[in-house]
């Protein structure tokens, strides 16, 4: 330390406690598999889940939910509930009508004429799905609050359920929202950035081969292991509120609560304490959050609501639920001509925060990694009397990836080509980046060849194909299927300008602050909100690497609008790509400020200073140096700073990405199918993912594993089923098959590293990759095994029963269209229930 550095009492005390000061930075922090800082509390049960929060005088809220899919509310009588011991209050929707806000928000009007029905936190006139809230009770404990629900008398007048999307669009169908006159929410038409699809196919004349399929994206229940919950503590006299919620988005939630309830934003503090997984299901503004807030305000007492799992399955948003009519065209030599996508997307009964945006997000992803001159996408949003859908891990991108990767296999079969060879022929080669896609996006980087070569090697593709041929030859009752998925996705949501052009209601930036404390420790404040991703660890690594301070010396502050006041939160694999880059940029500003002060203290010019591993040194005289921690202490003392210099190194950065990022990879799946029982067993799963630069490889691999589990679950196990009356028949964890350890295989993961060129860290995001890629890999494997039996598609989940039925040729419910003809040129049947259809007729049914 130079003598100017004498910071008096602080320096003295630090000298007595050398541990309080930092050790030198060892380097190599990025790419290191650091142990997670999060784990200590999680493995010892010292976690702060929302339901763990207890306050003096805390009351419990429960919600009475509609047992009917669709009914008029004739009357709600809560008076008997109020007589029960321990019941503090009970309210119907009408009782709260003037305080609960006019409608809950939908932030994504995907078309100017989108039908956006009123959605109040409690129904007042009609209930529109099983689980729609009708009344609330507030009582002294959970049991009393649950009991009191039974004392509420509701008279309903039943209305017809609307369960099937295609039926819902037919003229004369019963309406979910009778005042809207239609069940169609929107029609989104996107003709792509290339040539006209129909003209392109016609132009190819007899050389065009067209394959068409109808795929179903079944409805899924996201099932974070922690159900939702909320606690609201009011300071009644000041009309101020603190809300703890199991949310991925405390910052967005605060804005939306203010807009919905009229409580001024600055009087609301929203905290996401430890959150037990989200997967998109906690990316929302929920009725219970608003209800707990307005009830706590009304009573002036703290209120808690905790969801049961069965309630979660009715009242928390569902995922997927699309019917996809996909048509792909190529010349006979396999060169793609174009892709046509027509979606029906089930909104459920109401629009939640981004319900209509989820399928529309997929519009940009269907062409995936393939070069093609033409593309056309349309999506019709449909109201049904079911729980609203919204984001679920991947949100629009798994659906798109499934469709394109499935139909590439069908095209290969039609052309008699190897499915990987057909992909190679059409994908963007690594020399062609940056590449402008037919869907309008510009992919900055990628190397599909490298990932595929590595994956095929790990998988032993040649050996498995040989074995498959032998087993087919000898008609082995256990058949081997091989499935491919060469996927990409768009991550890092998102450039705000792009979101604006898509009519999304908010931006896509992320905020960071880096605070150098006097002792050289660092607090990093992030607007990204963790719920299992390991932000505490990864952000510490980024800060340690940029500032040259030890990993242990960095602490993350996040998830609380009071201490991390600005943020766009966590979803869409955006935390690292947007939030991480914001942190990196903020550290750059800290270094800039520190450099000015260091130059002043070292009596050198800024240009003569080098900065590396946390130390400023004077070029040519290496002994003249100061660590960034010494500069921090000098800044705190502020005895000797450059003239006019603010005595602080703290810096903020709000980063708005210039582009999405595009992770990609090659996933290969081998399944054994017992043709006698229909049982599918994943025998080998290999994936090579390219997620760009890696901050922590262990965390990355964990994200891939978890993603794979959810994608495989869609392929083989999970489906939310509604009966004709609109009842969710898979309404608990007994009926909804979330895979357990024996249901999943061992995954062999590898990676290639092609840095993103659109951000300074070269990172791409990894949260959704496994989910997006794996579903088609598994189903392609299942169909590959069954193809010799004349099967060319199977609905998900591919349960033993479905596989067995497909083998018996009795899978009649599945509407698989075969080949279509264009302008007279036609191709042979693909072996499905071939139906001829012309472009002109196409789509006229809706």
């Amino acid at each position, binding site marked *: 330390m130079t003598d100017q550095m004498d910071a008096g009492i602080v320096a003295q005390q630090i000298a007595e406690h050398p541990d309080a000061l930092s050790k030198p930075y*060892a380097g*190599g922090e990025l790419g*290191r*598999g650091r*142990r997670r800082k999060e*784990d*200590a*509390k*999680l*493995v*010892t*049960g*010292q*976690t702060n*889940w929302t*339901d*763990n929060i*207890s306050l003096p005088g805390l009351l419990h809220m429960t919600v009475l939910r509609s047992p009917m899919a669709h009914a008029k509310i004739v009357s709600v009588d809560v008076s008997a509930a109020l007589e029960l011991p321990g019941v503090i209050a009970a309210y119907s929707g009408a009782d709260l009508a003037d305080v609960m806000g006019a409608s809950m928000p939908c932030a994504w009007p995907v078309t100017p004429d989108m039908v956006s029905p009123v959605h109040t936190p409690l129904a007042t006139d009609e209930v529109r799905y099983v689980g729609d809230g009708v009344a609330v009770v507030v009582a002294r404990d959970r*049991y009393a609050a649950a009991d009191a629900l039974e004392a509420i008398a509701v008279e309903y007048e039943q209305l017809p359920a609307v369960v099937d999307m295609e039926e819902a669009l037919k003229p004369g169908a019963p309406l979910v929202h009778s005042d809207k006159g239609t069940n169609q929410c929107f029609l989104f038409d996107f003709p792509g950035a290339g040539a006209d699809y129909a003209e392109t196919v016609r132009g190819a004349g007899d050389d065009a081969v067209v394959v068409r399929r109808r795929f179903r994206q079944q409805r899924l229940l996201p099932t*974070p*292991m*922690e*159900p939702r919950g909320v606690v609201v503590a009011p300071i009644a006299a000041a009309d101020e509120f603190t809300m703890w919620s199991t949310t991925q988005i405390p910052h967005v939630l605060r804005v939306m609560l203010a807009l919905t309830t009229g409580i001024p934003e600055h009087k609301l503090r929203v905290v996401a304490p430890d959150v*037990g*997984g989200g997967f998109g299901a906690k990316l929302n503004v929920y009725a219970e959050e608003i209800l707990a807030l307005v009830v706590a305000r009304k009573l002036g007492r703290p209120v808690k609501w905790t969801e*049961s*799992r*069965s309630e979660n399955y009715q009242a928390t948003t569902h995922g997927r639920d699309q019917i996809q009519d996909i048509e792909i065209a190529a010349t006979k030599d396999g060169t793609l001509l174009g892709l046509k996508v027509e979606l029906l997307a089930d909104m459920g009964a109401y629009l939640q925060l981004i319900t209509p945006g989820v399928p529309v997000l997929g519009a940009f992803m269907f062409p995936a990694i393939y070069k093609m001159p033409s593309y056309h996408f349309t999506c019709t949003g449909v109201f049904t009397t079911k729980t609203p859908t919204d984001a679920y891990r991947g949100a629009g991108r798994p659906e798109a990836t499934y469709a394109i990767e499935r139909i590439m296999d069908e095209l290969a079969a039609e052309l008699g080509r190897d499915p990987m060879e057909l992909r190679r022929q059409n994908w963007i080669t690594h020399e062609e980046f940056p590449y402008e896609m037919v869907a309008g996006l510009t992919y900055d980087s990628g*190397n599909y*060849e*490298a*990932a595929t*070569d*590595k994956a095929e090697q790990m998988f032993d593709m040649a050996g498995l194909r040989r074995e498959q041929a032998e087993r087919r030859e000898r008609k082995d009752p256990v058949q081997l299927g091989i499935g491919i998925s060469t996927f990409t996705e768009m991550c890092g949501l998102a450039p705000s300008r792009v979101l604006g052009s898509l009519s999304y209601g908010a931006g896509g930036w992320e905020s960071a602050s880096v605070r150098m404390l006097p002792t050289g420790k660092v607090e990093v404040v992030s607007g990204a909100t963790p*719920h*299992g*991703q*390991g932000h505490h660890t990864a952000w510490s690594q980024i800060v340690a690497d940029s500032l040259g301070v030890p990993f242990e010396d960095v602490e993350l502050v996040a998830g609380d609008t009071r201490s991390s006041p600005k943020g766009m939160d966590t979803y869409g694999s955006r935390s690292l790509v947007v939030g991480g880059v914001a942190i990196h940029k903020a550290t750059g500003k800290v270094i800039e400020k520190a450099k000015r002060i260091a130059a002043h203290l070292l009596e050198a010019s800024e240009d003569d200073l080098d900065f590396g591993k946390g130390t400023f040194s004077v070029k040519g005289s290496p002994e003249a140096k100061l660590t960034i921690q010494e500069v921090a202490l000098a800044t705190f003392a502020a005895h000797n700073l450059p003239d006019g210099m603010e005595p602080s190194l703290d810096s903020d950065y709000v980063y708005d990405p210039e582009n999405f990022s595009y992770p990609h990879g090659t996933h290969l799946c081998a399944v054994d199918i017992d043709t006698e029982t229909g049982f599918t067993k994943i025998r080998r799963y290999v994936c090579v993912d390219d997620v760009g630069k*890696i901050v922590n*490889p*262990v*965390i990355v*691999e*964990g994200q891939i*594993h*978890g*993603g*794979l*589990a*959810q994608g495989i679950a869609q392929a083989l196990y999970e489906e939310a089923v509604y009966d004709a009356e609109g009842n969710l028949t898979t309404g*608990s*964890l*007994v009926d909804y098959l979330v895979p357990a*350890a*024996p249901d*999943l295989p061992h*995954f062999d*993961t590898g990676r*290639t590293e*092609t840095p993103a060129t659109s951000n300074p860290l070269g990172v791409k995001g990894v949260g959704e990759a496994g989910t997006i890629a794996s579903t088609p890999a598994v189903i392609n494997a299942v169909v590959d095994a069954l193809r010799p039996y004349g099967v060319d598609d199977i609905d998900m989940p591919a349960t033993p029963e479905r596989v067995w039925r497909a083998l018996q040729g009795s899978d009649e419910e599945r509407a698989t269209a075969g080949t279509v003809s264009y302008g007279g040129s036609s191709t042979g049947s693909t072996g499905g229930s071939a139906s001829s259809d012309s472009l002109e007729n196409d789509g006229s049914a809706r």
Partner: protein
Amino acid sequence: MRVRMKVDGVTYEDEVQPRTLLTHHLRDGLGRVGTPIGCDTSSCGACTVDIDGESVKSCSVLAVQADGSTITTIQGLSGAENGDSSTWHPVQKAFQEHHGLQCGYCTPGMIMATVDLLKRNPSPSEDEVRHGLEGNLCRCTGYQNIVKAVLSAASELRGEGPLPGSFQDAPENDTAQTPAAETAGAPA
């Protein structure tokens, strides 16, 4: 009704309703909130605790049924509750060392179920681990690292030392196996 039980080394005597679930008694009555609840059908295992030496889903037991028993929850599993990681149970250590958790919501139940599994089968195969933990759901990890953690803890409890962990402390002792990345240039 009056129940008396010893939980994580402390004896409690309380008035409960006949219908109070043990899990609610632990959480709301005794403030032992380290054990979370993930379902209402005894399907997920998040609430698993040890009752008199056996792992039990605490949501499937009434508080009155646990009268007179000795219960260990995740909070009492390690030697100390002051965060001293040197006192952690080998299973707790293994879950961290092998990244067997992400959000951590399933973790208390997974760890308690693992402790019981390894008592009954000290040398399980990978398959036996997977089947042994069938009653515990995890939505984050895909189970692979949980299986690794359990096999490592088994090895340590047998006195054979833990399996090599996934993480790297500092540059000088980079011994761990992480998947090698290839900087992608032209394809091979």
